[in-house]
C-alpha cells in the first residue's frame, strides 16, 4: 500500500506546531498502525530528518501509553487502542491525518506526545483505599456478590489512555474519574472513604482544567475498553450525596 500521512509536528511545548505531509510506501496490511509509523521513522532517520515522536509501550492494548487522534477519532476507526489497529483498516492511496490528543489539561510535549500527568493527580486525590501493607483481614472475610465484583471490574478495566478526554468536545475527564470512583464505591472496601473520595477526585478533576459533561456519549463510543457512561451517572450520585452530607467541614 501507498499512503499519504499528514502528521502534526511540534518541536516542544512552546512551539506553535503544524501539519507536515509525508508519503510512505511498502506498507503491508498486516502491519500495526504503530509499525507503519516505525517504518516512516526509519526512513526519516536515514534521510537525517527528526523522527516523529509518539508514545507507545506494551503494544498489546493494555498499558494505555499509546494515543493518536487518527482521521478525527481517538485511536482511529476501530474501538481499540492505536497499537491494536492494523493497516488493513485503511485503503491503498488513502491520506491519513494524525494529531495528538487535544485538551488543555493534556499539553503537547512534542509532536504527538502529550502530558497526561493530570490523570495521576486525580488518582492521588483519592483513587485508593487507605490501607497500609499488612494487618488486613483474610481475603475471604470480605465476601462480595459476583454481580457487584463484575461491575467493579468493568469499571476497573480503564487503562487511563485519555481517549475519553480527546473524544469529548468539552475535554471532560468524567469517564476516567467516574470509572475509579465507581469501582471503589461499588466494593465494600471503598465504603469508609466513599464521600471524601468523590468530593476530592471531582475537585481535582476540575482544578486540572477538564471540561464538564454534557452527555453526548462520545467518550463511551471511543473508549477502547468499553467503559460505560453509567459510571458517570454513578459518580454524579456519589458526588451529590457526598456534598449534601459532607464530611469535609
Amino acid at each position, binding site marked *: 500500500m501507498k499512503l499519504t500521512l499528514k502528521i502534526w509536528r511540534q*518541536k*516542544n511545548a512552546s512551539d506553535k506546531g503544524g501539519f507536515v505531509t509525508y508519503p510512505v510506501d511498502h506498507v*503491508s*496490511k*498486516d502491519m*500495526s498502525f504503530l509499525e507503519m509509523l*516505525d*517504518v516512516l521513522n*526509519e526512513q526519516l*532517520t*536515514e534521510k537525517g*530528518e*527528526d*523522527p516523529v*515522536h509518539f*508514545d507507545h*509501550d*506494551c*503494544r*498489546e492494548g*493494555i*498499558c*494505555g*501509553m499509546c494515543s493518536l487522534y487518527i482521521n478525527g477519532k481517538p485511536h482511529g476507526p476501530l474501538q481499540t487502542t492505536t497499537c491494536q489497529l*492494523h493497516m*488493513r483498516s485503511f485503503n491503498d492511496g488513502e491520506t491519513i491525518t494524525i494529531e495528538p490528543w487535544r485538551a488543555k489539561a493534556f499539553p503537547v*510535549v*512534542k509532536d504527538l*506526545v502529550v*502530558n*497526561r*500527568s493530570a*490523570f*495521576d493527580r486525580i*488518582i*492521588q486525590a483519592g*483513587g*485508593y*483505599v487507605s*490501607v497500609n*501493607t*499488612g494487618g*488486613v*483481614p483474610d*481475603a475471604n472475610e*470480605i*465476601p*462480595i*456478590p*459476583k454481580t457487584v*465484583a*463484575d461491575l*467493579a*471490574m468493568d469499571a*476497573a478495566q480503564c*487503562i*487511563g489512555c485519555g481517549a475519553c478526554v480527546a473524544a469529548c468536545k468539552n475535554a471532560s475527564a468524567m469517564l476516567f474519574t467516574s470509572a475509579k470512583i465507581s469501582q471503589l464505591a461499588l*466494593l465494600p*472496601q*471503598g465504603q469508609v472513604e466513599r464521600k471524601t473520595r468523590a468530593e476530592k477526585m471531582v475537585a481535582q478533576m476540575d482544578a486540572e482544567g477538564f471540561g464538564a459533561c454534557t452527555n453526548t456519549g462520545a467518550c463511551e463510543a471511543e473508549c477502547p475498553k468499553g467503559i460505560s457512561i453509567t459510571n458517570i451517572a454513578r459518580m454524579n450520585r456519589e458526588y451529590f450525596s457526598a456534598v449534601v452530607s459532607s464530611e469535609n467541614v
Partner: protein
Amino acid sequence: MILDSKIPAGPLAEKWTKHKFNSKLVNPANKRKYDVIVVGTGLAGASAAASLAELGYNVKAFCFQDSPRRAHSIAAQGGINAAKNYQNDGDSIFRLFYDTIKGGDYRAREANVYRLAEVSVKIIDQCVAQGVPFAREYGGLLANRSFGGAQVSRTFYARGQTGQQLLLGAYSALSRQVANGKVKLYPRTEMMDVVVVDGHARGIVTRNLITGAVETHAAHAVLLCTGGYGNVFFLSTNAMGSNVTAAWRAHKRGAYFANPCFTQIHPTCIPVSGDHQSKLTLMSESLRNDGRVWVPATKEIAEKLRKGQIKANDIKEEDRDYFLERKYPSFGNLVPRDVASRNAKYVCDEGRGVNETGEAVFLDFRDAIKRDSRKIIEQKYGNLFDMYKQITGEDPYEVPMMIYPAVHYTMGGLWVDYNLMTTVPGLYALGEANFSDHGANRLGASALMQGLADGYFVIPYTIGDYLAQIPPKKVDENHPEFAKAKEEVQNRIKTLLSIKGSKTVDYFHKKLGKIMWNECGMARTAEGLKKAKAEIKALKAEFWKDVKVLGANEELNQSLEKAHRVADFLELGELMVDDALNRNESCGGHFREEYQTPDGEALRDDENFAYVAAWKYVGEDQEEELHKEPLVFENVKLTQRSYK
C-alpha cells in the same frame, strides 16, 4: 569474593520467621531520616515504594513511562498463585514451594522459594483490601483456576487482566503516598547509572526524558525494580521500552549478574508476519487445552501451503503430523512451555513450518469445535479468538490458528542474597530484575506473585536491617563520586550523538536480536554460541563506529533513549552467550543440544552444575569472572522431568 547468600540456618519453615526476628529495626522516629530510591514502578517497584513510604522512609520513585501505572507488569494476563487452599484440594505452602522448585528444574534456592510460597497468602489479602476486583464465585468468595505445572487450583485472577488489576492496586497505594508527601514521583525519567561511594550504593544518575537534564539523586539505599531483559532478542512479548540498562549499569558498578542465559520462551505467540514486526503478542497458554498442534507431514506439502497453492483445511488427516501428541502421548499438547517451544522449532527447522516465513505451526480447533460445538469454544476462548483475528485478519473458527514461540520472561538477573541485596551493599534488586526464585524455568502465574512478595513483604523487613547499621544523616550529594558518575553519563550521551554514522539504532537491535534468537534461543550449541560471541563483538564495534542518532540531548529524543538501551543489550548479549557456553548441561529453558537424553529431552548435570552462575564485571572488553553459589537441596529430591 565468596558469595554469601545469607540463608538463615534452621528448618525450612522457620527460616523467614527467625530471620525477621534477627533483623535489626529502625526506630519509627528515625525512619524519616532515611532516603530510599526505587527505580521502576511495576509490581515490585510500586509495592516496595508504597510499603516503605507507609513505614516512614522518604522515597523517590522513578519510571521511564509517562505514568507509574504503565509499567509492563500491567500486561500480565493469567493470574497470581497463592497457597490459600481455598479449594480444599490439598494445596499448602510446601506444595507451592515444591512445584516451583521442580518447575524451575532444580536451579533455584530452597529458602527463597519457600519464603515466596509462605508470603503468597498475604499478597491476596493485601490486594483484596485495596479493592482489586478478583474473580468471584456466586457465594461471594474468591474464584480460582489451575495453571501449568500444578495439580491444584491456586491461581487467583481478574479476567484476563490480572497484572493490570494488581498493578493498579499497587499504583493506588503508591499514589496515596505521593499525596501524603512520602513519595516523590519522577515519571519520564530514566536511570543511567548507580553512584557507589566507599563500596556502598548511595544514589543514581538519571536523565529527564523531556528536557534531557542529567541529574544525580542521593539516598541511603537504592532498589532496582526494573524488570527483565527479554528485549535483547529485539522481538519479545515485553513492552517496547523494557530494557536492561539499570541492571546493567549496576552490574558494571559491581553487582554480579546471575544465570543470564536462563530465558523463558513461550510457545503460544502470534508468529512474526514480516520484517516490520516490532513486538510479539502472547496468546494464553490455556488454548492448548483444546487446540491441537500440527504441521504438514512432509516438506513438500508445507512448501505448497506456504506458496498458497493449497489451504490448511485441504490437508488430509494422514498428511498432518500432530507432533506433540505423537512424541508425548501422555501429556500431548499440554507439555510444559520449554518442551512445546523446542519441538515447534524442530519441525520448522525441518522445513515443515506453515506461514509465509515458514516459522509457525498450526493450533487447530477444528476437532474441538466438532466435539463441543462452536458455542462452547466461543465461551471458553472468545476474547482470545477475537484478539487473534484483530491482529492477523484470519478467523480461527474457520482456519487453524498459527502460533510460534517467543521470548517472554528472563529468569536470570542481578544476583541477590536472601535479603534481596546485590553484591553492592545498599543496592537491592526486586522482581524480575533479580534471579532468585524461578531457577531455570518459571511456572505460569508466579511472576506476579514474586514481584509483589518482594515489594510488599520482603524488602520492608530486610532493608531495615541494613539501614539500622548506617548513621541517619543525609547522604552528601557533593561527594566527588556523584559528579564523576554524572560526567561519565554526559560523556556517553555526547559520544552517541557525535558518531553520526549511517545505520539506525533499530538496525543494530534487530541484528543483535537475530543472533541471540538463532544461537542463544530455544536450542544452543557450543559451536553456535562461539560464533554468536564473535558476531556480537563485531556488531558492538560497528555500533560505536556507525550508529546514527539524530537530534540533541536537550529535548525529547526517542532515538537517543533507544541508543542507550541497545548499547547495553549488546554487552549483555555477550554475557548471556558466555553463560550458556559455560553451562554444559540442559535445564529448564536452557537447552544445549549436546546434552540431551536419547529421546531428545533436557539432560541436567546435577553433579557439576547445581550452582548459580554469578558473573563479575572486570573491565571494558575483558572476559567476565565466574563465581559459583552452590545450590543445596535439603528438602526436595532431584529428579528427571518426564512428560512421555
